[in-house]
């Protein structure tokens, strides 16, 4: 049973689980999906990629940022059956760049993330990498992004 008390200007309410079971009747204002002020996820309303999305971490801003943008744009716009299959050159370019900065882009085989020094989301390469130096991570393909650096999303 919930109860309520007042300490000066501060009101305190204790509630049980049952008290909160009934759905809330509080009214929230409907969000405008095209609100120009709002932060957007990975994909902007006009379909472009939001390079400034926190979910990308520093990928688009680091030394290999341009290569990353090229590769990921190609992948994003790809209409091939195997998405991104025509983007191999871009991904190779990105990989080459990343190999020059092992501290920033650790060369790990498994899908574990978290390079020491970064706690960013990373990008999963399509299954074309033959080298053992593939950089793996998860590409957020939907609005629901696992924060931080966890399990890869399927592409």
């Amino acid at each position, binding site marked *: 049973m919930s*109860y309520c008390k007042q*300490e*000066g200007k*501060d*009101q*305190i*309410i*204790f*509630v*049980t*689980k049952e*008290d*909160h079971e*009934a*759905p*809330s*009747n*509080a*009214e*929230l*204002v409907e*969000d405008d999906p095209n609100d*120009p*002020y*709002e*932060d*957007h*996820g990975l994909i902007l309303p006009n379909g472009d990629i939001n*390079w*400034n*999305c*926190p*979910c990308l*971490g*520093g990928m*688009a*801003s*680091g*030394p290999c*940022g*341009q290569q990353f*943008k090229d590769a990921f744009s190609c992948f994003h716009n790809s209409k091939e059956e195997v998405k991104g299959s025509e983007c191999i050159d871009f991904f190779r370019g990105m990989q080459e760049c990343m190999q020059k*900065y092992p*501290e*920033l882009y650790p060369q790990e085989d498994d899908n574990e993330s*978290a390079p*020491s*020094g*970064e*706690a*960013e*989301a990373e990008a999963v390469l399509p299954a074309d990498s033959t080298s053992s130096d593939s950089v793996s991570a998860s590409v*957020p393909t939907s*609005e*629901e*992004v*696992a*924060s*931080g*650096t966890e399990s890869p999303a399927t592409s």
Partner: protein
Amino acid sequence: MADLPTTTTYLETSQQDDTGVPSPTINTRGRFLLRHERTPQFVQPAHMSSGPSGGGGENTLYFVLVGATCLAGGAYAYSTLVGDRERYQQRITEIESRSSKPAAEPSTPAKTQPETAAQAVSEPTEASEPASAAASTAVEPTHAPYLLIGGGTASFAAARSIRARDPGARVLIVTEEDDLPYMRPPLSKELWFSDDPTVTETLRFKQWNGKERSIYFQPSSFYVSPTELESVENGGVAVLTGRKVMHMDVRGNKVKLSDGTEISYDKCLIATGGIPRNLQVIERAGDEVMKRTTLFRKIEDFKALEKVSRELKSITIIGGGFLGSELACALGRRSADLGLEVVQMFPEKGNMGKVLPEYLSNWTTDKVKKEGVKVLTEAVVKNVTYKEGKVEIKLKDGRVVKTDHVVAAVGLEPSVELAKSAGLEIDSDFGGFRVNAELQARSNIWVAGDAACFYDIKLGRRRVEHHDHAVVSGRLAGENMTGARKPYWHQSMFWSDLGPDVGYEAIGIVDSSLPTVGVFAKATAKDTPKAATEQSGTGIRSESETEAVAGSVAVGKAAPTPPPQQKEDYGKGVIFYLRDKVVVGIVLWNVFNRMPIARKIIKDGEEHADLNEVAKLFNIHEE
């Protein structure tokens, strides 16, 4: 420059004396100063402040002016000469040490050293930056399309934002610190919980989810060398460490650094943060006390305090806000192992007294005490002296504390020195540079982070000193510097952990003087900060807000909770802060991963008749 204020004071008070304002209290100090300055031969007794300015008053003023100017001039000349000698020595030692270090880039010979040493103002530059080896501008950039003043969180967030949005952007960060950009929250939290004895060197911390990371946002390989900035193919971010921007020429779009270098810019961000405030009683207490006082803000302060905690027997923290309480808890946890006494004192009635409503502040204070801290509430420091090897703190109510070391955590003074040369407005209510809703001070100057007093469309003009705000405002400034023209809209959050069992996240205006409504359930073992970060997989709480997509809500699975008992245990809940019946602030007390809902409620800015109904949206009983 310590003499200038005194001179001004002289001038001000003596001006007050002549304006005919007969107020004893205002002019008492003025009269004292005048009396010590010289014998008032020409003063007509008892009419000085209100008499017509005749021969007597004017002459006295003239003598005071001349005397003060001579004093000031003499002192300045002396300090310059002494300073010059010191700086020259520093330069020479630095050059010698540098020649033995391998440089990544060939550095130009130090031909300009004798010249710069002779200048009135010069500072030794960081040896690890090969570009800055010589102060010669032939090596370093003289122009930066994007110039970021300050190398903290806001600046780094802006750099990242600019690089993401402007392909090939060349961004130059100028910082007076010797370190590359790093995050501050672990300095008073996670770094203290580390088991690694080399933590003061590595500055790495293990997050609750087991993952380790450095406090530096990026390792040095992320940045390009300043010498390469203008030429590198795809642009990049370069950091000039150990330099302070001393002068800003807004008309000419250029700045002057402490070593005399001039850099012009197209767009500039001021993210100078602030410096810790000190108590006047400590400043006046003399060198022996100042030597044993830490003003905590930077990496070097963390290292120094860590050393102190191992070597000394008693530390006293003055201040009961975020920093003071976090440090107290961090040190308190070590107190048993180290045989260290940890005392915390502050004028409020409880920890976080200016943030949390009284009942919660009291509850928090009990928790802090359980962490091993001796908490003295309603403690106002009267004076501090060094006596018999101990720092003695006397409180106004008579209590005395004898300690080995003092940490002053009494607030932050925003760094607005550039406002003068730049002709920028300073806010008189909140301090900091006054900027508009888009963080602009001028058409090509933005300000972000602790130093920015900005207009928040929803909550009004404010200045926020939190990490997430630095990230959010830095990012926004970077966006606007690349043409976005967006106002501050995404509300930043903040968080604090007081030990592993008590943590909260908050958003908006969280001021204990506002009326509040708190809705609580009883906490289970699962409702702790530790559990929260384990579940969401994040290490530093802010990441779950800024690194995730806005709008995603991670609501966990329901877990059986025992029904709360009738006693007052504020285990977990939601507290709403109201201004004119609208929710302007929310504290999520031991309830995590609900920030998007809280943000939505503040954004709506609606009057809700029943806040219990609003509280239901948070599912506080669930995981």
